[in-house]
């Protein structure tokens, strides 16, 4: 998992490059765009470190709205201000919107075919695995966390259980566990 020293960060050359990158990653994102976003933005384009990816995602998920949309806006804004935010958002949404509307128009003919339904289930299982894998991939970023390894690990476990097993709404996880975790981090950083 550890691939040595991280390569130097690069920047997109223009809003057009942002548009193309987000367009490309959106079109590869079946059942969730986050795993592809991590691969493209961090590993292929080197626009963000893994740590920055987790930071942007943290903010993106506590704000209302889809976290990938929030991420696109924040990353676009960071490089080119409003123009960059608009370019990233349009890149993320335009082509997939056309595709999904086309599918909606054809849906009646496709949904009855058993192979199609089976293929969709198989893609669903893989996209679940991709999200789990992305979590494992960014896990090493916790090494440098001010919480320290045991506490950070405990927070990962508790939040995963709260959301995935006990099905606590995200708002309460953020307000409860999140507040505790942030307070502990603040306390550790002040010492």
């Amino acid at each position, binding site marked *: 998992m550890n691939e040595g020293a991280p390569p130097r960060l690069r920047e997109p050359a223009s809003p057009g490059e942002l548009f193309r990158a987000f367009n490309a990653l959106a*079109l*590869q*994102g*079946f*059942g*969730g765009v986050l795993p*592809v976003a991590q691969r493209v933005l961090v590993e292929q384009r080197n626009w963000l470190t893994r740590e920055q990816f*987790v930071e942007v995602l*943290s903010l993106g*998920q506590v*704000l*209302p*709205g*889809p976290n990938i*949309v929030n991420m696109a*806006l924040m990353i676009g804004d960071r490089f080119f201000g409003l123009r960059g935010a608009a370019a990233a*958002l349009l890149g993320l*949404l335009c*082509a*997939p*919107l056309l595709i*999904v509307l086309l*599918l*909606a*128009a054809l849906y009646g003919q496709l*949904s009855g075919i058993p192979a199609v339904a*089976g293929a*969709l*289930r*198989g*893609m*669903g*299982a*893989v996209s*679940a*695995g*991709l999200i789990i*894998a992305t*979590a494992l*991939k*960014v896990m090493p970023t916790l090494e440098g*966390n001010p*919480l320290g390894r045991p506490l*950070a690990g405990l*927070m990962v476990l508790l*939040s*995963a*259980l*709260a*959301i995935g097993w006990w099905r606590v709404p995200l*708002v309460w*996880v*953020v307000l409860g566990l999140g507040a505790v975790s*942030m*307070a*502990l*981090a*603040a306390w*550790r*950083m002040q010492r």
Partner: protein
Amino acid sequence: MNAILFGPGLLTHADLWAMCLHFMLLSVLAIGGAITTTPEMSRYVVGERGWLSDAQFTASVALAQAAPGPNLLFVAVIGWNVAGLAGVAATMIGSLLPSTTLALLATRWGAQHQQTLAVRAFKAGMAPLTIGMLLATGWVLTEPLRGHVATAGLVAVAVVFILYTRLSPLWPIAIGAVVGALGYLG
């Protein structure tokens, strides 16, 4: 042509504006993504207004999940089924405008205050929760498929692809589609 622009023609202009406003309200409440507001959306579109049937609503969500791109696009499919392209504009603008404005304001505020204890504590404290949320999301998505051995295999294939190769995630997705189409997932 009218069917493309306005769908089945159930909605008046006032209805379209009302739908847009309702989706704006939901956008502000959509912490954890638009998908978390589906129960309320279904209550409004199916129960209160009767613009779609329950089955149409569920099929709209499933369709968007299967297509490439952000899951948010399920609101576009709902808009399309209710009122054609006018409906798409109403639901998409409603869902995006409030949350995008907030996201931009928040990221700029955070960038200006990144040295403050509050922002640093937020980043450090939220990082493990974000990773926990990803694990939970993956786990929840396997729920309808847990009875099948093939599911565990496909999850493992996806994990190996991401951790140990630099290939596009499209490859494991294609493998999943083939395995599923051959009938290994019921």
